[in-house]
């Protein structure tokens, strides 16, 4: 047993450290910040869904904000009208969003990835006005207000035993989101390193070759789209829980762009990428809005312009620069740096044979 743990590859220890960090985080930050981190994790879940689609299967969706809206409204309506427990509605929202995503993907995916991008972009633009229409169901422009969740007695007691203070609803939301995040990241990891993931990557890297190898192109593409809409639905449902209300304006086109920024910056086709991307996409506008006005060396003219422009300019510039200079995002940069460091420490691979020196930990 001990031997098994000692031979675990270093990345397993990294995962353990990251998980422990996120479990312990609310005990060192205040309740409001825990709410912010819950929102960042919500984005990370949605970005993981987008990453399965964009990074692994090479299809582009610009409408994941709309699928988040779908999940959020399914949960909110079930809670508000049918008095269901919010926690129960989260998987329902995910499954329904996944199903609708699957159906939406059937026509769009018969053609090139461009058409899916076009159709989903149109969906994201239309979504707010579609939501407003059935006003008695969705609450129209005002949306639906949700009561803050009450932490269950057991969780609150356990939290009080550690920190000495009762658990707030923001902290409870954070832990619910974290639990879903762990589950969904673990699922994605399992999915992507087995048959399904290999099929998706084969399609991404060459449709004709994949089809010739007996991979059902349309089937896997719609499956990928359905799964990623499922992730967006769960994220949307958690978004409603964390925000305390849902309204049509909570899901503008810019939300879909924000998800794409997170996916690209964190690193497409990687498992840790969406987590980094979610944190980045959530905190970048908040932090830069707080940071820019405090910097006296920036001329006030430019500072006020940046403030007025909001996150849009930053997001746009980050998207373009990342795609040109670091198409694999932060994870790609770290990976390249790590490989270089290893090369320095253990010797460069043999150029002639292309073989790496023996790695003692893999045997």
């Amino acid at each position, binding site marked *: 047993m001990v031997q098994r743990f000692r031979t675990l590859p270093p990345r397993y220890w990294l995962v353990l450290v990251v998980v422990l960090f996120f479990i312990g985080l609310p005990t060192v930050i205040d309740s409001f910040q825990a709410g912010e981190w819950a929102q960042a994790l919500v984005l990370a879940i949605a970005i993981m869904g987008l990453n399965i689609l*964009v990074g692994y299967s*090479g299809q*582009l969706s*610009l409408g994941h904000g709309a699928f988040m809206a779908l999940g959020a409204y399914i949960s909110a309506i079930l809670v508000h009208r049918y008095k269901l427990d919010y926690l129960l509605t989260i998987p329902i929202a995910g499954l329904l969003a996944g199903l609708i995503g699957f159906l939406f993907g059937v*026509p*769009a995916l*018969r*053609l*090139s*990835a*461009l*058409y899916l*991008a*076009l*159709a989903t*972009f*149109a*969906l994201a*633009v*239309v979504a707010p*006005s*579609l939501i*407003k*229409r059935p006003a008695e169901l969705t609450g129209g422009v005002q949306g639906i207000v949700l009561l803050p969740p009450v932490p269950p007695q057991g969780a609150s007691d356990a939290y009080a035993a550690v920190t000495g203070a009762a658990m707030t609803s923001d902290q409870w939301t954070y832990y619910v989101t974290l639990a879903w995040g762990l589950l969904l990241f673990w699922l994605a990891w399992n999915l992507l390193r087995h048959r399904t993931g290999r099929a998706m990557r084969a399609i991404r890297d060459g*449709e*004709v*070759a994949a089809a*010739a190898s007996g991979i059902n192109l349309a089937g896997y593409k719609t499956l990928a789209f359905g799964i990623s809409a499922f992730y967006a639905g769960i994220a949307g449902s958690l978004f409603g829980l964390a925000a305390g209300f849902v309204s049509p304006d909570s899901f503008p*086109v*810019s939300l879909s*762009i924000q998800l*794409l920024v997170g996916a*690209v910056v964190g690193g497409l086709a990687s498992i840790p990428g969406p987590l980094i991307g979610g944190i980045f996409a959530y905190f970048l506008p908040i932090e830069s809005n707080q940071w820019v006005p405090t910097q006296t060396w920036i001329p006030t003219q430019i500072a006020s*312009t*940046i403030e*007025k*422009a*909001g*996150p*849009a*300019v*930053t*997001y*746009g*510039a*980050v*998207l*373009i620069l990342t*795609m*040109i200079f670091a*198409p694999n995002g932060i994870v790609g940069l770290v990976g390249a740096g790590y490989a270089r460091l290893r090369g320095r420490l253990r010797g460069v691979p043999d150029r002639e044979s292309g073989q790496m020196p023996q790695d003692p930990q893999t045997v």
Partner: protein
Amino acid sequence: MQEFLQLVVSGIATGGIFASLALALVLIYNAMGLVNFAQGEMAMVATFIAFTLISHGVNYWIAFPATLVIAFAGGIAIQRIVIRPVERAPLLTLVIITLGLTTLLNGLAGAIFGYVPRSFPSPFSVQTVDIFGAFASYRDLGVIAVSGVVLLAIYLLLQRTTVGLTMRAAAHHPEASRLLGVRVSWMLALGWGLASAVGAVSGIMVAPIILLEPNMMQTIIIYAFAAAVLGGIESPLGAVIGGLIVGVTVNLAGTYLPFVGGDLQLAVALAIIIGVLVLKPNGLLGRPSVRRV
């Protein structure tokens, strides 16, 4: 009946606007197999430039061509600066870059010009004229005339001039064209410049109708997508026909279908996109795509 005819005429006018923007999309699609999501925002920025010129006292009919020249140069600049470094990258990379451009231009315009909607001058009066029993405004007729002239000019340029021939050759057979001495990359830049100028026409035409602000083109670009998909995304003529059909359909649906009304007209465009993808994926004039291994 009279109401119906009037709706058709004003639908043709807005359709001409959609057609210009759709044609811009088709130009770039034909040049590099890419849908330029930033086309609408590029047109919006050009419209703001026209607005600035006009509000500084420049005559409308001087500001209009001047803006087209600036938009043309801007399109070339964008191609040279952000598209050329990734010309050989996968399609997904290019699409994401045009999306970044969309967000960037939208944010910049908001920061520089603000989000307060402004009224944009039109050289045509809104007075109406009686044509065969339907009252059409001079503005609608002017929009139709300007769009028609632009579309005709593009057609002549592409089909009847050496530059047009070279551009088409560069798009269809980049390798062979390069061997024959065509500077393919600059032809792509020319395509971007042309698309930017054509898109700018749609922005300047639509601004008097829906007020000028940074998010102005967000809905227009969706109609243009619908027009381009309906016409067949690689066909310039298809873009024009698609634009007119979308313009008229949306106008009629907004009036005669009670559940659509004014606020769900955009959903009609989405329905057109999905409908075309289900029923006739290559659009009205598109050729079925053949993939070579």
